[in-house]
């Protein structure tokens, strides 16, 4: 077993060696600019980009022309939301999104609010899913865009995207989804789900960092966007800038591998995830799963280990790379807003650990991680005044704490 063990595959994934092999020639001998129209260097690059465009489109049920390359999902989210807001400003000024979205969506919406747009942030239910009736009720004549992530990056819950797509389409509103966590892991189809815009990135599916895409629907309806960068008019005028050819080649290859391997791989990942979950639940008391277990990515597990603070738990399992919703592990010193949105209480957010299992993890690693977590949680509970109080029968919710 190679140490340390990487179980943080929602943050990023290691690149698949097959992806790297596909990319390498495009750094050196095939270095052309895909926009060079009159020599072989340009043609080679363009051909490689078009092949990748097709590989990506195939994975999501789109056509090649609907794929716009970007630098990553943050840019894709910005382009989709700001691009639609500006293009359709005459139609309306209202956008609907969800409280548990990634910051690249939430902060883009906040930016638009400063420019006079109105944004509704839908709450989620305790299982992390959007309430469809609440969504229906939020759509007005002024609504131009609904943006709901496909799967959440912290708790892995998969939103009812097909139902949302149907509701949004019936109201003649555009539907954007940030699908970075779902793509390549579960079947996604833009036709079935009535998706108009979709953000993608390569580095969450064993491709390189620094390359992403935005799916922009061309038929029923034909979606238009205001470009957010001025320049050479690449990518149907929606995103200027010389294409990152090696990155795009890698992105395409990564999508192709995911499409081929998803049926078996998703079953394998789910088995590993359930093995980890079952071991932890069997060995420890007062462990809570955050978010729906029914509508969830196969490789995600997010658990709160009550009376143990997340950062101290990470410190104890220092040969395992995972992440926590604890305030101490965040740059803002605030506990995870996603977990807070579930309404479970800040104390459980502080005690949460996110496990993201990936293509290269083994059963041996999962067993090792489960044992380490059990060992460290037990040790830290021996140290925890809260655990001691609960064992003495004290109701923590009735204690007068000195909030600081």
């Amino acid at each position, binding site marked *: 077993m190679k140490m340390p063990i990487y179980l943080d595959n929602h943050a990023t994934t290691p690149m698949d060696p097959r992806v790297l092999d596909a990319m390498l020639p495009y750094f050196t001998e095939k270095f052309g600019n895909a926009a060079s129209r009159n020599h072989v260097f340009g043609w080679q690059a363009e051909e490689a980009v078009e092949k990748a465009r097709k590989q990506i489109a195939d994975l999501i049920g789109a056509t090649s022309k609907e794929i716009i390359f970007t630098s990553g999902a943050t840019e894709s989210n910005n382009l989709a939301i700001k691009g639609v807001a500006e293009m359709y400003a005459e139609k309306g000024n209202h956008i609907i999104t969800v409280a548990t979205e990634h910051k690249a969506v939430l902060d883009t919406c906040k930016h638009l609010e400063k420019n006079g747009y109105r944004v509704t942030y839908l709450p989620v239910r305790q299982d992390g899913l959007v309430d469809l009736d609440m969504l229906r009720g939020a759509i007005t004549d002024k609504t131009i865009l609904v943006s709901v992530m496909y799967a959440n990056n912290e708790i892995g819950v998969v939103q009812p995207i097909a139902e949302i797509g149907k509701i949004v389409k019936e109201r003649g509103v555009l539907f954007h989804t940030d699908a970075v966590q779902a793509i390549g892991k579960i079947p996604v189809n833009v036709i079935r789900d009535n998706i108009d815009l979709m953000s993608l990135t390569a580095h969450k599916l064993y491709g390189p960092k620094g390359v992403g895409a935005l799916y922009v629907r061309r038929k029923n309806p034909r979606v238009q966007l205001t470009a957010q960068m001025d320049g050479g008019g690449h990518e149907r005028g929606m995103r200027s800038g010389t294409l990152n050819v090696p990155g795009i080649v890698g992105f395409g290859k990564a999508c192709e591998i995911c499409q081929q391997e998803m049926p078996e791989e998703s079953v394998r990942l789910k088995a590993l995830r359930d093995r980890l979950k079952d071991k932890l639940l069997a060995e420890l008391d007062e462990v809570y799963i955050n978010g729906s277990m029914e509508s969830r990515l196969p490789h995600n597990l997010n658990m709160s280990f009550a009376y143990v*603070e997340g950062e*101290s738990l990470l410190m104890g399992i220092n040969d395992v790379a995972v992440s926590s919703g*604890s305030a101490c592990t965040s740059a803002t010193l605030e*506990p995870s807003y996603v977990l807070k949105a579930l309404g479970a209480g800040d*104390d459980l957010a502080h005690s949460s650990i996110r496990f993201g299992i990936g293509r290269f993890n083994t059963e041996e690693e999962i067993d090792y991680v489960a044992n380490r977590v059990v060992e460290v949680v037990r040790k830290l509970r021996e140290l925890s*005044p*809260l655990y001691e109080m609960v064992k003495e029968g004290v109701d923590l919710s009735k204690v007068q704490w*000195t909030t*600081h």
Partner: protein
Amino acid sequence: MAYSDKVLDHYNNPRNVGSLDKNDPNVGTGMVGAPECGDVMKLQLKVNPETGIIEDAKFKTFGCGSAIASSSLATEMLKGKTVEQALEIKNTAIVQELSLPPVKIHCSVLAEDAIKAAIADYKKKQSALQASQPVSK
């Protein structure tokens, strides 16, 4: 974030973990912080009634590694001091000893607060004890 060797040492080998009898009149108990803030420290000290010296100290902490290390260190600092000397312990001494980075200074502040709370509890118990005893002429 990288932890200092001293934080790691206290985290891996916490000193004086445990609880003292909170009903003992010579024991002072301080509990500070809140679960929703991500840290709660319980710090206890036991004063020898003959010498007035803190002869034992125990802690339990729910919190990050730096919070655990701060309270572990605090129990070490308390032992052998008089109550008045213990009141002089400043959070900056903990920051220095553990090389805490700026974002972890609040852990040391919490440890100082826990010491003060434990001493206040001890003094309250002692004055209640004296009030209930017959005054000797």
